[in-house]
């Protein structure tokens, strides 16, 4: 009996507060499998605003955040005629993936303090801590610029399409260079600059099949992995020499 009670309680907790009233959303897929021919894919986030009484002022913001990692940004300086890495900043626990789509530009949707509080927008991505002897802001901006160029950070006003007053859809590109792990897809409903409902759905991006096994082998049994690589290289080298010899 106790088990049943606990399970029911867990289900109640798992249901996002408020989501049942104002906002429902879903993903086109909850798992992305990185296989040998993975070149990136699109995730479609779709949903409905329930009870859209004040239609004109509803805004939807969709944010996909990837697993965090520590990142080091280095700045080259002109020293004795050559450009070498000089100053650096370590940004602790930055998201490896951050993609935001919204119905309009963010500054039209909500005031700055709201955007900052919910970490909405590239300007509001912040590490938990910065280790640097210098002004960290240029380093943080450089990181965001690099990640945008890599295709793993993005901010697209208008990226959320309203198909009707109640239905919305957003397409999130998942680049080929993404870090595997658990992602969170957060959908925010804002009305007159206030977040009135939010829903979070996990998205799993994982390497599968042979790739996963090779990745595991490389990290769990690196010696055997190294020996396997050398054996493969030797065999291929020998085979090619033997094959060409026969043709002579």
């Amino acid at each position: 009996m106790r088990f049943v009670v606990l399970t029911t309680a867990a289900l109640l907790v798992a249901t996002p507060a408020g989501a049942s009233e104002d906002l429902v959303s879903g993903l086109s897929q909850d798992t992305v499998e990185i296989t040998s021919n993975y070149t990136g894919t699109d995730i479609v986030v779709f949903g409905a605003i329930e009870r859209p009484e004040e239609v004109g002022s509803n805004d939807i913001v969709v944010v996909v955040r990837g697993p965090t990692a520590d990142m080091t940004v280095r700045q080259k300086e002109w020293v004795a005629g050559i450009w070498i890495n000089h100053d650096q900043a370590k940004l602790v626990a930055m998201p490896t993936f951050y993609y935001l789509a919204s119905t309009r530009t963010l500054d039209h949707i909500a005031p700055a303090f709201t955007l900052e509080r919910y970490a909405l927008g590239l300007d509001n991505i912040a590490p938990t801590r910065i280790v640097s002897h210098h002004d960290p802001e240029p380093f943080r901006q450089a990181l965001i610029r690099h990640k945008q160029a890599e295709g793993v950070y993005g901010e697209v006003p208008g990226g959320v399409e309203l198909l009707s007053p109640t239905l919305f859809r957003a397409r999130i590109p998942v680049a080929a260079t993404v870090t595997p792990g658990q992602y969170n897809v957060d959908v925010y409903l804002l009305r007159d600059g206030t977040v009135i409902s939010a829903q979070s759905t996990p998205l799993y991006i994982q390497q599968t099949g042979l790739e996963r096994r090779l990745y595991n082998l490389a990290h769990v049994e690196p010696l055997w992995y190294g020996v396997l690589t050398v054996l493969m290289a030797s065999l291929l080298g020998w085979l090619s020499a033997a094959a060409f010899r026969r043709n002579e």
Partner: protein
Amino acid sequence: MEIYLPIAEMSVHWLILLGMGGAIGFLSGLFGVGGGFLLTPLLIFYGVPAEVAVATTASHITASSISGALAQWRRRLLDLKMGSVMAAGGLGGTVFGVWLFTLMRRYGQMDLLVSSSYVILLGTIGGLMLNESLAALRARRGGAGPAKRAPHLWMHGLPFKMRFRESRLYISVIPPIIIGFGVGVLSAIMGVGGGFVVVPAMIYLLRMPTNVVMGTSLFQIIVVTAATTVLQATTNYSVDIVLALFLILGGVIGAQIGVRTGERLHGEQLRLLLALTVLAVAVKLFFGLVLRPDDPFSVSTGGP
């Protein structure tokens, strides 16, 4: 079709991988060098993380060197004893080099170390070889005889002398061991086989006969790059076996074509070609160091 590389964590079209491997393999067979000094910058330029490029290139060189070496060894163009002495020094150098590689990476000075080592080494060797081969070509055109016998070098007076029958040499083992050690270090930190150092060192310092130089240098390169692959895999987890497979498939075919092409060309012309290639890479890397970068900031995951 694009192929996902599990360690580099990126997708690359398989034809591009085969093409890069093939081009480098061709040079490998032609010159008796590993070609890593071109492949590593090529991979980094293509967006492969530097540590993956360095470590994976080593295994590519193992394969293309074996392919090229068997062609040489069938004609007995190999000094196994000399190769073994140099490989022993090379193993020590590899261990030291991987340690240095890990240390420099921690301080964010990997790029500087790699680029400046490339510029200095390739610039010096390329210049020396260009000079030498131009002189040889002029001498041939002038109808002069072969170069005079080399003067006796100071290093030939060192102790622990050993007879190397195939090289027709009776010299101390110290210079070959030191050369092997240095090349082992280069293999680990630059992702090169070191043929561009070993071949001139054998010819100009050890005075080995040119015909056994290629087979012997390839033997030494095979041992050192195999050791580098295993050490990088266990220390930095940066060997990408899928990337290696495609580079090798292209490389072994290119190497066979290279060896056959090399047989039809004169030694002086070969050396002139190699000198020009080496100098071109050195100049390009030199400009990378002294010109203002487009973006002074760089990002790496992880931290010191």
